[in-house]
């Protein structure tokens, strides 16, 4: 298995029409195209990307993979993703540098401890590996975490998902892209969807800067731009777009063995294969499509990081950047049909999109192929905002309560 295969994709001209057109060539769009071809034999598929493949949130995330979600519906889809991740390098014949180094979610308050314990117990019963670590065990697992009781918010314990970890995001995208291309999918870059062709309430194609492209079904997979695209088809989504910032340090000799996340002090950090520390910050509160956030968010994050990891004090921020996350009211995604016939949507992953990539593609492909939800994405339909059957991962994270 080579790190970079010699051939990745063709750069085809768009054809007049396809069975399925996927709008958005990010991780989810590429995975969807691959599974459409691989699982459902639907190969007359185009992925339309207005920029370059996987150049949106796929290129900007902190590459954390875990499935230790609280609610059954979330655990099911993320655990399906994790199982796919575990076989993905082999299936796609491309080393995605998947490293199951374990993810710690630190608890700093008694409420965090309760939530962590609740999650560990639920995870186990849902077949998701999970352990509760006391502060000593935290220190053994990640010696650089400051577990002193004398800090402002001492570490009271942590949940650990041993099978969780990181993967190389670009490799993931290119691996899916290469296989999809091999199976006949047209990956069309520089192709911006500017409108939809409709017949009554049915979508029959898309307008693009490269001309109209007809489609049997259209699937949106354009994280960060879902609302804008959906509005072109007259659909309003329960989604708000916000900047989410991240940063890397210079290359450093190995010092950080796992992934550490802390909701309470808003830090998540790992050390990438080459040696840089990769960190995510909090979401900027305002709506934005600018792929840029405010510097105080980074400053606060650094202050928090140094409370947890004093050894980082002399490291340097080499680059910061921002992605656009589509956030739903319950912090869970939407995958399924829209009120417009033949138009489907996959959006609202918030900060959780990367880790879900294979399962998102798997279930969305099923939905686009059959017109019906896969059992894993059935709970994630738009209807829940009418019925009230939300899958509230905000509450589960004890944020804002």
């Amino acid at each position, binding site marked *: 298995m080579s790190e970079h295969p010699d051939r990745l994709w063709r750069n085809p001209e768009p054809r007049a029409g396809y069975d399925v057109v996927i709008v958005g060539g990010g991780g989810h769009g590429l995975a969807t195209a691959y599974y459409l071809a691989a699982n459902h034999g639907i190969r007359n598929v185009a992925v339309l990307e207005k920029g370059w493949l996987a150049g949106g949130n796929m290129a900007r995330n902190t590459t954390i993979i875990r499935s230790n979600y609280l609610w059954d519906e979330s655990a099911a889809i993320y655990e399906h993703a994790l199982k796919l991740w575990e076989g993905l390098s082999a299936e796609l014949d491309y080393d995605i540098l998947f490293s199951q180094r374990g993810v710690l979610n630190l608890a700093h308050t008694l409420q965090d401890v309760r939530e962590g314990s609740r999650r560990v117990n639920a995870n186990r019963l849902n077949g998701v590996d999970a352990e509760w670590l006391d502060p000593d065990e935290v220190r053994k697992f990640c010696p650089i975490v400051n577990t002193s009781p004398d800090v402002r918010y001492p570490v009271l314990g942590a949940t650990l998902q041993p099978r969780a970890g990181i993967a190389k995001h670009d490799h993931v995208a290119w691996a899916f892209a290469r296989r999809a291309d091999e199976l006949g999918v047209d990956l069309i870059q520089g192709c911006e969807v500017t409108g939809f062709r409709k017949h009554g309430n049915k979508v029959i194609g898309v307008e693009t800067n490269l001309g109209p492209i007809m489609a049997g079904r259209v699937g949106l997979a354009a994280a960060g*731009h879902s*609302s*804008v695209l959906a*509005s072109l088809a007259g659909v*309003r*989504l*329960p*989604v*708000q*777009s916000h900047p989410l910032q991240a940063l890397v340090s210079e290359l450093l000799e190995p010092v950080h063995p796992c992934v550490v996340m802390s909701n309470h002090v808003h830090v998540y950090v790992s050390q990438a294969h080459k040696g840089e520390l990769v960190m995510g910050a909090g979401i900027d*509160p*305002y*709506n*934005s*499509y*600018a792929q*840029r956030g*405010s*510097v*105080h968010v980074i400053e606060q994050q650094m202050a928090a990081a140094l409370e947890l990891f004093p050894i980082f004090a002399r490291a340097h921020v080499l680059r910061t950047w921002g992605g656009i996350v589509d956030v*739903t*009211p319950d912090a869970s995604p939407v995958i399924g049909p829209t009120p417009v016939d033949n138009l489907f949507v996959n959006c609202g992953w918030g900060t959780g999109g990367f880790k879900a990539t294979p399962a998102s593609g798997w279930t969305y492909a099923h939905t686009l192929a059959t017109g019906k939800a896969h059992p894993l994405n059935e709970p994630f339909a738009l209807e829940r*905002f*009418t*019925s*009230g059957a939300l899958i509230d991962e905000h509450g589960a994270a004890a944020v804002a309560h």
Partner: protein
Amino acid sequence: MLLIPCPWCGDRDETEFHYGGQAGVPYPERPAELTDEQWGEYLFVRDNPKGEFAERWSHSAGCRRWFNLVRNTATHEIVR
């Protein structure tokens, strides 16, 4: 760091404010008369345009007044 014009206190850093999302979405006059769809739409669906957006802010660390402004979500320019 956005610089936000509080109509009372003048320009202040964004850290003094709370964001309130889309402006001009009134609480339904008679919620009981709405369908589940209409109520769900009120609860959960807001505009999310790329470009100019009329939105609400509260100067929470200052005079605590709520106000509206129009900001471009693509450039962060405050238009008015």
